[in-house]
């Protein structure tokens, strides 16, 4: 064969393999509102930037008639490319080929990308759309999954790892996304569960639809397994590109600094907050009036809404924000919000992203169900995460900071570098009502008019302790600031912290309560 012939042969093979499961299968995929795997990669990455790896890998299964089957790309497309000019590694499972099922060669294509990403300091993005293990390959498919999970773990904290669930992701397969940093879902398309509805019905007699059990909304609101939800695939890829813009490419690189931009609206505390500290306000409005371009990318918006976490820029620098949300459950900390905030704090610390904590917390949510659910060990995670974090830590106390909540929300004592408070801050061991009931109990019950005595004690306590000045007098906070100067103070503190040096004591690794 001539050289020209051989090249032509190659191009034909390329086209054949790139057709995936064939026209009919691709049409079926599209009919379900899902994109073809190759189109997904094109939608995610910068136009024309995708370099495919392992196009010619084939499955090696000789059982169950598999030796006669040709599975193009062995059901997964792998390679590298760019997002906003920055390098990333990507894999996309192809549902049109054997249901995107995972066999050992399919898995090894993925692990090759994982190793490449870690070696080349590039984030890894995995697009999951698979029926699960390829049963015909038996234990080899389990081996494949194991090799992936091992690398998800080993590379955790080395490079950002992002999972996209745009199709089924069932059984053991779910553990890969669970081990990654962020999970993206699409409403109506994502399905994620260990055991599906049919098995649950047969074995336990519980009836539930696939969507209710493991759909996008369930994972974004109930289980906390997912971090983002989009209305369609296009929006999902936009969200991924947006998240990526805040992150560095690896743990030893800094995130890109952009040009500083002012927030879109000016900040007016009287418009943002009610004067009655027992009335709610939306802390997201405050966040938007402080950050560059009022651009805040919230993470896990629908899970544990009583704490708000997400990314923004302050004077061009990427930061992670953690804030109590008084508008929801009075901004208390509980099991789910502690988990949500702690994981976010540890991610930011792993990737050198400074933290800004906004505090307005009345305490932890009381109740037997919280206690039985382990609010003690879950709550401990947040204290742990903040104490362990060596990134610059800025804290702003807006209103209430009572008791354990004061400590947990990145207080000076957990290593915050700069702690400011507004004049409306109330930094106290407990709220005035609680104080009256405990500290002054004897006095109140002995009084001629206990109700009047109680109100007097509440007022006395409020006067003396429900302010930031007692804490300021001990240096537990660095200053009480005029709310109108908030952004200026935060920007100066953040810029000053740029060269922070902080190291943990030498150890093999820590033992975070789980």
């Amino acid at each position, binding site marked *: 064969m001539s050289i020209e012939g051989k090249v032509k042969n190659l191009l034909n093979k390329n086209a054949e393999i790139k057709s995936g499961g064939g026209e009919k299968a691709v049409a079926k995929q599209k009919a379900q509102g899902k994109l073809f795997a190759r189109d997904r990669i094109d939608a995610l990455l910068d136009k024309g930037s995708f370099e495919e790896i392992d196009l010619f890998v084939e499955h090696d299964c000789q059982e169950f008639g598999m030796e006669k089957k040709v599975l193009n790309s062995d059901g997964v497309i792998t390679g590298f490319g760019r997002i906003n000019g920055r390098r990333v590694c990507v894999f996309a499972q192809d549902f049109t080929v054997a249901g995107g099922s995972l066999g050992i060669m399919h898995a090894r294509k993925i692990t090759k990308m994982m190793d490449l990403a870690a070696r080349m300091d590039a984030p890894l993005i995995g697009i999951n759309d698979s029926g699960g293990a390829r049963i015909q390959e038996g234990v080899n498919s389990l081996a494949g999954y194991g090799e992936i999970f091992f690398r998800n773990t080993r590379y955790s904290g080395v490079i950002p790892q992002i999972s996209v669930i745009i199709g089924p992701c069932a059984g053991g397969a779910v553990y890969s996304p669970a081990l990654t940093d962020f999970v993206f879902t699409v409403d109506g398309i994502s399905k994620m569960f260990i055991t599906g509805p049919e098995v649950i019905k047969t074995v336990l007699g519980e009836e539930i639809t696939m969507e209710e059990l493991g759909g996008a909304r369930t994972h974004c609101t109930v289980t906390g397994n997912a971090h983002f939800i989009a209305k369609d695939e296009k929006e999902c890829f936009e969200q991924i590109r947006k998240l990526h813009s805040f992150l560095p490419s690896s743990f030893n690189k800094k995130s890109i600094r952009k040009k500083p931009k002012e927030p879109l609206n000016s900040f007016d505390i009287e418009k943002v907050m009610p004067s009655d500290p*027992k009335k709610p306000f939306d802390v997201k409005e405050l966040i938007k009036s402080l950050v560059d371009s009022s651009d805040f990318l919230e993470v896990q918006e629908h899970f544990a809404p009583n704490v708000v976490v997400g990314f923004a820029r302050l004077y061009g620098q990427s930061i992670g924000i953690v804030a109590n949300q008084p508008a929801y459950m009075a901004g208390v900390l509980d099991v789910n919000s502690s988990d949500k905030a702690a994981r976010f704090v540890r991610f930011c610390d792993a990737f050198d992203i400074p933290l800004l904590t906004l505090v307005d917390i009345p305490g932890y949510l009381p109740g037997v169900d919280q206690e039985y659910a382990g609010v003690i060990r879950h709550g401990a995670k947040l204290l742990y995460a903040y104490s362990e974090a060596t990134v610059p830590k800025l804290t702003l106390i807006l209103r209430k900071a009572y008791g354990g909540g004061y400590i947990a929300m990145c207080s000076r004592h957990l290593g915050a570098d700069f702690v400011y408070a507004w004049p409306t801050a109330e930094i106290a061991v407990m709220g005035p*009502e609680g104080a009256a009931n405990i500290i002054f109990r004897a006095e109140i019950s002995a009084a001629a008019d206990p109700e009047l005595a109680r109100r007097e004690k509440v007022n006395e306590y409020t006067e003396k302790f429900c302010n930031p000045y007692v804490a300021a007098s001990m240096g537990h906070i660095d200053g009480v600031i005029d709310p109108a100067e908030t952004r200026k103070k935060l920007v100066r503190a953040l810029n000053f912290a740029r060269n922070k040096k902080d190291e943990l004591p030498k150890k093999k690794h820590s033992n975070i309560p789980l």
Partner: protein
Amino acid sequence: MTEKSILNVDYTQYETTLSPAFLNRKNYQAPDPTMVKAMIPSVVVDIFVKPGDKVKKDDKLLTMEAMKMKNDTFSPLDGKVESITVKKGDRVAKGQLLIRLKHA
């Protein structure tokens, strides 16, 4: 945000939105040993007592089948069987009442 409710934290009442989980919570009830309940969704395979029977602690009351395993349920106390609310072959939910006992 949806309409405002009150959440009491350490004796202080805060105006806020309550979560569905909080609104639907069941207040804790101390377990009542005279109510023998199913620990897991299961099927009643065998019942070894009838109303009026005297029972001693750890006497076998019923056998339930769940997750392909047979699970025996034993009496938590010395007493009498007051009533049985299931029959052989019934599929029961977790927490469903099976037998009511009376202390001796």
